[in-house]
């Protein structure tokens, strides 16, 4: 059972009301245990649904990585929150779940969070010589020729 495998790894687990939240179980974990957690989910035939990130520097000076795992057998969506410090790196799970490759590149592109052990961590949505990370709360895109509001 997945719960047994996770119990030694996860910091905090709460059951959630699926109808209200859209997932069944929520875990809070430390970022360095993410590879072990992913291994556990993989061994129980789970797949990675998505990875996303939140810029919570205004709240508690952290970036929150959010992973979702689900399986086809008995639908049970697990959401994992892992907080990291703004200057810290997170471990990549692209070697365990290949689907994580582009999600991690997207998070790197949009938030500037770097992933250790990623095979090819480069921008995915913005052009490669872009300077910033657009989804950060304090991001301001300077005037550029592609926007009408910046026309002289």
């Amino acid at each position, binding site marked *: 059972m997945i719960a047994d495998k996770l119990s030694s790894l996860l910091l905090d687990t709460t059951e959630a009301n699926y109808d209200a939240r859209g997932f069944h179980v929520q875990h809070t974990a430390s970022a360095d245990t993410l590879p072990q957690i992913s291994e556990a989910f993989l061994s129980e035939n789970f797949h990675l649904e998505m990875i996303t990130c939140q810029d919570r520097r205004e709240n508690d000076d952290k970036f929150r990585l959010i992973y979702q795992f689900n399986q086809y057998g008995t639908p049970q969506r697990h959401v994992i929150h892992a907080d990291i410090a703004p200057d810290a790196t997170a471990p990549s799970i692209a070697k365990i779940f290949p689907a994580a490759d582009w999600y991690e590149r997207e998070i790197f592109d949009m938030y500037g969070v770097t992933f250790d052990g990623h095979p090819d961590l480069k921008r995915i*949505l*913005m*052009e490669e010589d*872009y300077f910033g990370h*657009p989804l950060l709360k304090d*991001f*301001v*895109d300077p005037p550029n*020729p*592609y*926007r*009408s*509001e910046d026309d002289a």
Partner: protein
Amino acid sequence: MAQTELPLVTSDPKDIEELREQVGPLVHMDLLENLLNHARSRSLWPLTFGLACCAIEMMAAGAARFDLDRIGAGVFRPSARQADVMILAGTISRKMATPIKTLWDQMPSPKWAIAMGGCTIDGGPFKYPGQYAIVEGADKIVPVDVYVPGCPPRPEALFAALFKLEEKIRAGKKFKK
């Protein structure tokens, strides 16, 4: 017009200029140019190239029900070197701006561009103050000849744009920009 005395043999640019004004061009290329423009307008070869959802409508326009081949514009060329018209069908993301510019530069003149759909006119639904993701209008990167409004435009609208472009090509230099 008052005729002035001009020397029979001259190399003075002023005299040559005056001579031109009085006599007009010695060889008229207009007929040939008209014929070429007519041929060009009846065989517009678009670039095989779609950017977003408008491209689906462009494909529908090219397929059997609407059939762009009826007006000679159904030969979608896979190489920019053989294409006459670039149909910009869909949202132009910032990352795509450079490849589009490259493709446009690779197309041999004479060449034309059709901006299809709201996104290529001014950014459409993706435009907001401070946005970082898209190019607000195809005319920021290539010179656009015809704009087609719609989200996405019907295939008939694309046909109308091609007819408009044909008119423009056939008008040649008489077309005032």
